[in-house]
């Protein structure tokens, strides 16, 4: 293993441009003759558009075009798609209303675009947008799932009666009913998972450029998967044929899922650029981001868990209502179904599980995959239930979990997943030791003496990463297979370019992927360039989400590397007149085993391209590609423990210690892995304590800026105490499980379990703001 190979804490190659202000984000793109777009957005949650008068706006200084939803539909620009078909219990396909990129007739959430102004400057576009007059007929709106499914509720789409998208189920109802019938004890809870706004620090942005000379469109966009964007824009939206559309996702300032999707603004900018024959830039402001980026979570769940007299779990019954907002976003249908209910076994042996999920339309921003996508919701349900059960039974929460852990692998859950490997006792032990679990009563007593309430909370999470085996997701309704591609190009001088279909938006691929090449070839990471994010450079890829870049993306690179090595060994053997089987690669050199014969990798590369002395019949060049389709998901898991202290006078919760013990399989760069955990923990603690999305009953988003939506800041968080245990993932050649979302998945229940422990209450809703906690302490929860 070299200094820059697998397992090393190598500082990141990409940092240099970021810390010197040389990053290249979409809003940094500036083209000759570039115009600027500003969208006219609905101020109403639900309204019919009677008319749009664009005349005054069109006459304003600098205005190039004012375009409406009716013109978009008239030009046959397709409606936005949802890429994963879910069938209801009765076998019927999910019921969806049309989702146009700009509303031609009816708006269904505040912020939905109805028109766009294109002008020479951003300010001119903004000024002119003010002059677009839209005559709305307001309609009654509904924002919560339970209201939306009531008799007589406002109806969003005629295609979805009762606002129901689907009524889906998973698991064995009869077996689960039988388990409950035979139970010694049952734990029941109503569990809310609060709606979050993703808030990557870089707002979404798009630059569209139509080149009339070549009849070619180029889109720079803040995307996690530029190839999928190009495919969908071409195949479904009638924007341009695929070979006439180039999509570039340059440096992207965070995604967390919210930049997986193709949004209306990208479609409109491409369409408008061709129409106006000018380059167009649109960059979201932060309030637009709150109003238009797909939100996350928003579940209401009734959960029941059955136990025998020895506290062994017999069964789990869950009924979840998922708020989809006003339209079905690209991956939204899969989140509360195959990404949620399939993880409801957690780390536990649960013989029978039955989950029902009702997907519901409301007059709110569309909800889609966000930072964990379904897994945080599943973990929250299970880990709140386990903690509550332990308290109900009067047993230690750690021991209740230990008693029910899965300990033998592979393990087939009753909800599709086959866990491949894990050691849940190891991570529980590591976490309990790190937090000094045994010493907690003394710390609680000490806090009490100071007038503070101290609590401790556990969470044993599991997630399914490395999305995903194509055949498996295809059989479950996904529109695409989720393999990944890679190409390894060795240059004649021995430097290496790796083209990958994964996309880096903070994950450090330029470093970790290069570490893999360094490990294999013994060359420095500065000799390796990672090329990604441009459909003109990389042939195809599926992008980055669900911690798939390591497990799937790097496995594809490894496959291509192996092909390169095989050919290079043949060349080296020929040049050194040795048997191919005797060639070994060590420290950047090709050596003949058992002799002192050797030659540097760079000379082998040069020979491949000069082509004078290759084995007979061999094609010149040293460049190989590979596609890798995983055989299973990967299953990172771990235990998180939160110790929190509450000031009863103010209700403020302080996280005094947070321990994470994760099993991510093999870590390519532990420094980067830990960084991703830190970020996830901040999100999870943010969800538990601070972040809440608040709509008024008539659909106005009250939390539409950083003045109103409480983002976690440095002062809200502790320094984290991270530990690792390791079982290698048997499902991919590198043993990688993935780490990107773990912190966000595992931490909310740990925090809420600590708070409920401190307060001695059964439940408190997220976010557990000081006001909510104070009310809980002072007995006024009912007033909420």
């Amino acid at each position: 293993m070299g200094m820059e190979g697998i397992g090393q804490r190598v500082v990141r190659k990409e940092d240099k441009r970021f810390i010197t202000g040389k990053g290249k984000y979409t809003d940094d793109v500036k083209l000759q003759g570039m115009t600027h777009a500003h969208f006219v957005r609905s101020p109403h949650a639900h309204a019919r558009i009677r008319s749009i008068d664009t005349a005054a706006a069109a006459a304003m200084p600098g205005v190039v075009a004012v375009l409406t939803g009716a013109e978009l539909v008239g030009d046959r620009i397709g409606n936005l798609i949802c890429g994963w078909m879910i069938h209801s219990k009765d076998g019927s396909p999910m019921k969806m209303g049309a989702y146009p990129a700009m509303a031609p007739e009816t708006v269904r959430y505040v912020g939905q675009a109805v028109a766009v102004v294109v002008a020479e400057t951003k300010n001119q576009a903004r000024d002119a947008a003010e002059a677009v007059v839209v005559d709305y007929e307001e309609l009654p709106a509904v924002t919560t799932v339970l209201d939306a499914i009531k008799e007589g509720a406002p109806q969003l789409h005629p295609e979805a009666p009762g606002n129901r998208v689907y009524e889906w189920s998973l698991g064995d109802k009869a077996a689960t009913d039988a388990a409950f019938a035979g139970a010694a004890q049952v734990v029941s809870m109503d569990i809310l998972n609060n709606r979050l706004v993703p808030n990557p620090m870089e707002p979404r942005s798009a630059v569209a450029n139509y080149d009339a000379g070549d009849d070619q469109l180029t889109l720079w966009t803040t995307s996690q998967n530029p190839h999928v964007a190009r495919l969908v824009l071409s195949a479904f939206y009638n924007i341009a044929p695929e070979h006439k559309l180039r999509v570039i996702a340059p440096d992207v300032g965070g995604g967390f899922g919210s930049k997986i999707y193709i949004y209306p603004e990208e479609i409109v900018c491409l369409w408008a650029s061709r129409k106006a024959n000018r380059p167009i830039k649109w960059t979201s402001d932060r309030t637009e981001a709150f109003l238009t980026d797909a939100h996350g979570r928003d579940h209401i769940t009734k959960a029941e868990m059955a136990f025998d007299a020895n506290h062994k779990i017999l069964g789990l019954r869950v009924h979840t209502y998922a708020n989809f907002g006003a339209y079905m976003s690209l991956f939204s249908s899969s989140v509360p179904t195959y990404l949620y209910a399939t993880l409801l076994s957690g780390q536990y042996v649960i013989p029978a599980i039955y989950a029902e999920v009702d997907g519901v339309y409301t007059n709110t921003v569309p909800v889609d995959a966000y930072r964990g996508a379904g897994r945080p919701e599943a973990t929250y349900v299970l880990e709140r239930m386990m903690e509550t059960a332990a308290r109900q039974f009067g047993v230690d929460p750690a021991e209740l979990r230990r008693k029910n852990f899965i300990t033998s692998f592979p393990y087939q859950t009753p909800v599709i997943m086959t866990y491949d490997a894990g050691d849940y006792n190891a991570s529980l032990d590591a976490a309990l030791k790190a937090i000094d679990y045994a010493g907690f009563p003394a710390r609680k007593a000490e806090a009490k003496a100071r007038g503070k309430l101290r609590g401790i909370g556990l969470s044993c999470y599991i997630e399914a990463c490395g999305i995903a085996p194509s055949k498996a997701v295809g059989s479950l309704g996904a529109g695409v297979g989720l393999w990944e591609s890679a190409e390894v190009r060795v240059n004649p001088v021995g430097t290496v370019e790796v083209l990958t279909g994964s996309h880096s938006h903070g994950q450090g691929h330029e470093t970790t992927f290069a570490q893999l090449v360094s490990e294999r070839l013994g060359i420095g990471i500065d000799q390796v360039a990672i090329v990604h994010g441009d459909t003109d450079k990389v042939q195809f890829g599926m992008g980055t989400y669900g911690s798939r870049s390591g497990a799937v993306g790097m496995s594809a690179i490894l496959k291509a590397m192996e092909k390169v090595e095989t050919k290079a060994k043949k060349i080296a053997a020929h040049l050194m007149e040795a048997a191919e089987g005797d060639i070994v690669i060590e420290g950047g050199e090709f050596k003949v085993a058992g002799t002192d014969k050797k030659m540097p990798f760079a000379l082998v590369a040069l020979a491949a391209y000069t082509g004078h002395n290759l084995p007979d019949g061999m094609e010149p060049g040293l460049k190989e590609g590979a596609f890798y389709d995983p055989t299973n998901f990967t299953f990172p898991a771990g235990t998180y423990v939160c110790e929190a202290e509450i000031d009863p006078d103010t209700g403020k919760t302080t996280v005094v210690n947070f321990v994470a013990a994760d099993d991510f399989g093999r870590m390519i760069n532990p420094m980067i892995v830990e960084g991703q955990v830190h970020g996830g923990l901040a999100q999870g603690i943010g969800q538990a304590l601070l972040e809440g999305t608040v709509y008024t009953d008539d659909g106005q988003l009250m939390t539409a800026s950083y003045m109103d939506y409480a983002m976690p800041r440095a002062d809200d968080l502790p320094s984290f105490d991270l530990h690792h245990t390791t079982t290698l993932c048997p499902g991919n050649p590198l043993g990688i499980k993935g780490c990107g979302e773990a912190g966000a998945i595992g931490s909310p229940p740990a925090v809420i379990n600590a708070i409920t422990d401190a307060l001695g209450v059964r439940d408190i809703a997220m976010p557990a703001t000081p006001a909510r906690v104070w009310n809980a302490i002072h007995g006024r929860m009912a007033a909420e």
Partner: protein
Amino acid sequence: MTTVSMTVNGRQVSADVEDRTLLVDYLRNAIGLTGTHVGCDTSQCGACVVHLDGRAVKACTCLAVQASGSSVTTVEGLAKGDELHPVQAAFREHHGLQCGFCTPGMIMTAVDMINRHGGNLDEATVRHELEGNICRCTGYHNIVKAILDAASKMRMPAAAE
């Protein structure tokens, strides 16, 4: 339109802009220095922090005309050639960035913080004084570490300005 002139990173610059132009837009669009970022509309996120006459300001809360005649330092002006500023080096060393979008503002805030405290910082102070900068990637853990490390290095006489 008004002609706005100032010194940016030691270089005299000048451009005609609308009176309502914010300093951050002047730097990004009129001068072409895109290292300073815009992350929100309400001066909460801090992605746009620059130094105006030596003090950290949010460039989205300041009009370009207000900065006319001043000296502005942006993230592009910190390194001396290939030699990174100690705060830049510490952010890299401690993995204090991921997507890099909030990073320029974080670094400019950190430099100002260290300057004001003469390098004498503790974790609680750093966390408190970062209240005007939001990061969604790093959980702040490594940013705090980076700032404390840079502060300790800048406290040494050899590194003193």
